[in-house]
């Protein structure tokens, strides 16, 4: 008769020969679990994963590839090895795009058109393109990129989010895969403590050696396809999309929110939602706190430290913002404070291999055409600027003795 836990324990001892009764038995079970995980990862192969498939279709040359996996995929990135190529790891948020009805492209791909080879080696660009990236995401991507030992690193620092602490991270799937790269830098530990959950750490470390855990996104995708057939539910209709200015409490407005930030921006708007676009954009810029008081400072500091210590040519730059922004009073001052603070942080990480262009790139260029606040519609002059910057850095570092960017293939004669 079973009356208490001890009776259960006795029964198990009699029937199973004392399994789990001692520390050694438990240890053997843990060991068999690990063996089991290894066996599952070997026997049940995860389907191959293709990074950035939708974006890569838009890039004409295969020398430039988006290496970012899905935003839910804990593996983060998938790069290609090619020792013969000169590999540039180019990290950036949506400002890497050129968006216009006539032409959608990526700025790194347009730069590659101008610099197809370095020292006789074809230039290969691994694009760590993180749409909607915030500063912690850029740091995580940079750490992952540096671990692949590229020949050069480029980092795009969108000034809107650089010191804006309403949104420091967005790609939380990178936490696990980045942990093992960031943990070697004790100064980054406060960031790991702030952003990583225990499961990020455990799975990040275990996933590197155990495909059964590391490839869980691919398993989930495969499983979802199977389970969809079994489900009695119909495929739901698309979420309602808001048209025009809707009530922020409406279902359509809530359905359009893809991140908590959307909620806060809607209910605690940085500027009067009825004001003109330039004023609203300025409100977003003014949310930045470039006074050294926010966690963003530590992220930028460690990002620049990683680049300075990488031992390969590295450039961090601030992409241009729309001239429309400067129509609003105080916009120039707000942006200048961000630039100045970035320069102050960069001064602490001087290195012959690192160039930090803290000034918004549009200040030194002829008027540019924009799709919106930060996305270019015609990137020609900016591509020229970046190509010159890369060549200048490669020559200064004596990586090559000759580097002359080609002309703009889309320039009107």
């Amino acid at each position, binding site marked *: 008769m079973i009356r208490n836990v001890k009776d259960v324990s006795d029964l198990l001892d009699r029937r199973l020969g004392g399994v789990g009764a001692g520390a050694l038995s438990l240890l053997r079970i843990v060991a068999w679990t690990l063996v089991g995980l290894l066996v*599952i990862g070997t026997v049940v192969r995860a389907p191959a994963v293709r990074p950035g498939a939708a974006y890569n279709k838009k890039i004409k040359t295969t020398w430039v590839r988006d290496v970012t996996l899905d935003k839910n995929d804990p593996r983060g990135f998938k790069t290609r090895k090619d020792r013969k190529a000169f590999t540039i790891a180019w990290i950036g948020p949506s400002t890497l795009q050129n968006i216009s009805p006539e032409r959608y492209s990526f700025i790194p791909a347009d730069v590659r058109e101008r610099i197809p080879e370095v020292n006789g080696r074809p230039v290969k660009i691994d694009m760590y393109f993180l749409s909607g990236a915030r500063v912690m995401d850029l740091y995580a991507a940079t750490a992952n990129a540096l671990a692949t030992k590229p020949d050069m690193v480029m980092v795009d620092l969108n000034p809107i989010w650089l010191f804006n602490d309403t949104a420091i991270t967005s790609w939380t799937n990178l936490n696990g895969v980045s942990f093992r790269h960031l943990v070697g830098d004790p100064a980054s530990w406060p960031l790991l403590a702030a952003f990583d959950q225990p499961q990020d750490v455990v799975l990040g470390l275990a996933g590197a050696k155990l495909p059964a855990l590391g490839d869980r996104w*691919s398993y989930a995708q495969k*499983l979802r396809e199977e389970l969809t057939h079994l489900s009695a539910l119909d495929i739901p209709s698309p979420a309602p999309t808001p048209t025009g200015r809707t009530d922020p409490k409406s279902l359509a407005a809530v359905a359009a929110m893809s991140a908590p930030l959307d909620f806060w921006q809607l209910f605690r708007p940085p500027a009067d939602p009825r004001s003109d676009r330039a004023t609203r954009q300025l409100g977003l810029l003014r949310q930045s706190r470039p006074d050294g008081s926010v966690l963003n400072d530590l992220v930028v500091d460690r990002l620049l430290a990683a680049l300075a210590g990488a031992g390969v040519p590295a450039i961090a730059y601030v992409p241009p913002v729309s001239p429309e922004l400067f129509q609003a009073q105080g916009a120039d001052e707000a942006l200048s404070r961000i630039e100045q603070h970035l320069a102050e942080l960069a001064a602490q990480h001087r290195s012959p291999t690192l160039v930090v262009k803290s000034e918004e790139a549009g200040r030194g260029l002829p008027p540019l055409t924009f799709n919106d*606040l930060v996305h270019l519609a015609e990137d020609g002059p900016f591509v020229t600027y970046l190509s010159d910057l890369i060549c200048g850095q490669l020559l200064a570092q004596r990586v090559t003795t000759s580097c002359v960017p080609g002309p703009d293939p889309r320039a009107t004669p």
Partner: protein
Amino acid sequence: MKRPRLDLPRRLPRYVVELVIGFVLAGLVTLAFTASVSSVPFIYQGF
């Protein structure tokens, strides 16, 4: 000094049960973490 006997026949059932429990746990762990990750492709709507 007399060497201790391994007494495998008596212990074997326990070892086999430990192996089975370990493998079942591995399967459950894999399934649990597979279920914890969303595989619906992410579509970004902002900037």
